[in-house]
């Protein structure tokens, strides 16, 4: 079975995002970019499934600018066998991304797509579900544990009240939550090896997909800042302030 792992290039999670002065968005120029952390978890899971013999090949795919090659190399250094870049300079929404991914799924025919539950830039939490809908495949979102069997996958999902286990017929889409695994670091020899792995580039506009945005960004602003309050010197003073000043207990 082949596993397809979509990965997104985003502002590194350690960087404090800065809103552009003209209110058009968040600054991404001259900022450290990395693979979306949830996608690292997805790559790790796919590679582990291949190492266990539950999968035969792991293909990473990214939709984005030419520089997204860097995160595809990272995915291959972590163990993905090959990679596809669907190149575009447009900033795409989850719907368009899912449609592009569907063309790749139609071509590659994976048994499983594993992807991050959300990208930490737009925080949409939507692409996996939209892809599953458009493929008419079942979906196992917010995965905490993934078990693959003959023709099925069982996904333990992180839900509001605890955990829910769903059993899905393959092919299926799984989206990762934080507890699924701890992604490995790419070692130097594996980074070297990844340079020789195949990376194919396809132009997004050659795939016959409508990429026009459905959302118009009216403005992007900083949220109202909270100001730091006071320091108290003891637990007793804290209780007193909460009780008599803030009146919240």
């Amino acid at each position, binding site marked *: 079975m082949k596993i397809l792992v979509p990965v997104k290039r985003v502002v590194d999670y350690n960087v404090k995002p800065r809103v552009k002065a003209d209110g058009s968005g968040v600054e991404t120029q001259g900022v450290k970019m990395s693979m979306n952390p949830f996608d690292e978890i997805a790559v790790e899971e796919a590679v582990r499934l291949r190492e266990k013999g539950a999968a035969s090949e792991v293909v990473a795919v990214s939709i984005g600018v030419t520089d997204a090659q860097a995160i595809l190399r990272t995915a291959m250094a972590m163990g993905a066998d090959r990679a596809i870049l669907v190149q575009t300079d447009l900033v795409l929404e989850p719907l368009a991304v899912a449609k592009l991914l569907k063309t790749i799924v139609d071509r590659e025919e994976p048994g499983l797509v594993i992807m991050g539950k*959300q990208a930490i830039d737009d925080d949409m939490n939507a692409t996996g579900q939209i892809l599953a809908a458009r493929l008419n495949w079942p979906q196992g979102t917010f995965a905490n544990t993934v078990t693959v069997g003959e023709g099925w996958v069982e996904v333990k999902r992180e839900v509001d009240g605890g955990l829910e*286990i769903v059993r899905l017929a393959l092919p299926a889409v799984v989206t990762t939550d934080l507890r699924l695994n701890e992604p490995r670091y790419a070692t130097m020899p594996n980074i070297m090896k990844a340079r020789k792995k195949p990376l194919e580039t396809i132009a997004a506009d050659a795939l016959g997909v409508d990429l026009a945005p459905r959302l118009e960004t009216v403005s992007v602003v900083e949220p109202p800042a909270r100001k730091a309050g006071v320091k108290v010197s003891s637990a007793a003073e804290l209780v007193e302030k909460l009780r008599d000043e803030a009146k919240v207990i």
Partner: protein
Amino acid sequence: MTSLVLVEIENGLVKQASRSAVMAARAFGDVDVLVVGEGATVAARIEGVVRVLHADLPPLAETIAALMADHAGDYTHLLAAATAFGKNVMPRLAGLLDVQPVTEVVRILDADTFVRPIYAGNALATVRSKDARKVLTVRGANFDPVPAEGGNAAVESVSAAVEVPDAQIVGLEVTKSDRPELETARVVISGGKAFKDAENFRMLEPIADRLGAAIGASRAAVDSGFAPNEMQVGQTGKIVAPELYIAVGIAGAIQHLAGMKDSKVIAAINVDPEAPIFSVADYGLVGDLFEVLPQFKAALDA
């Protein structure tokens, strides 16, 4: 204009976040709700609901999204609360309808224009949807819930004619707790990595009981096994905005702040005077939690 809100039933009641979604939907006109499984008669009593659509189906995204797509009809807006359940179903519905969903809405400006946080709440984006029909998830904390009583809606059974892919629920591990729900509690007390182990983490319990508070956790505390996943507060966990949020041994990473910085009052206890949590705290106490927490409990009881 009429909206359809997918509501969740929990312990025989309509979830508060779902009633907040109904409130959000009122901005667009009349509101119908959809209930999957038990609870249609309870939902019929929500104030201001015109019609309850009721389907006897397993609570799976595959079936619910297909059903909603089938019944989308003249609805201009399809909504749910941005809970794990709503986040699972609504984008799938959007995919079926060829709509770009707008998730985690915190403000509605008009029928097409919505405000949502991006980048872990470090920016607020106002977006205008060009889709003819909108698919939205809304944050419970940002909309007052409509009253659970006062309505008298007609209940109508519905079913889906479409074939859905093969999925089934085979297990559920629900954590039982008598404490208030994290997202709706008036007071939340959360613990971080600093507790060192699960046993120590339980130091929060007597204080939570004393304050009638829900217990939350940072990602590091959940990852370390001190608390179950559903207690995680933050960008990728639960979003809370209680009257009082007490952060104990939590550094205050942006991903954590994203989940609690809209709380009315924030108190923080941390040994490190430079901890970023203090930059959002109304009341900060620099100190070792292992010393401070027992003193805090004693002061409450005094």
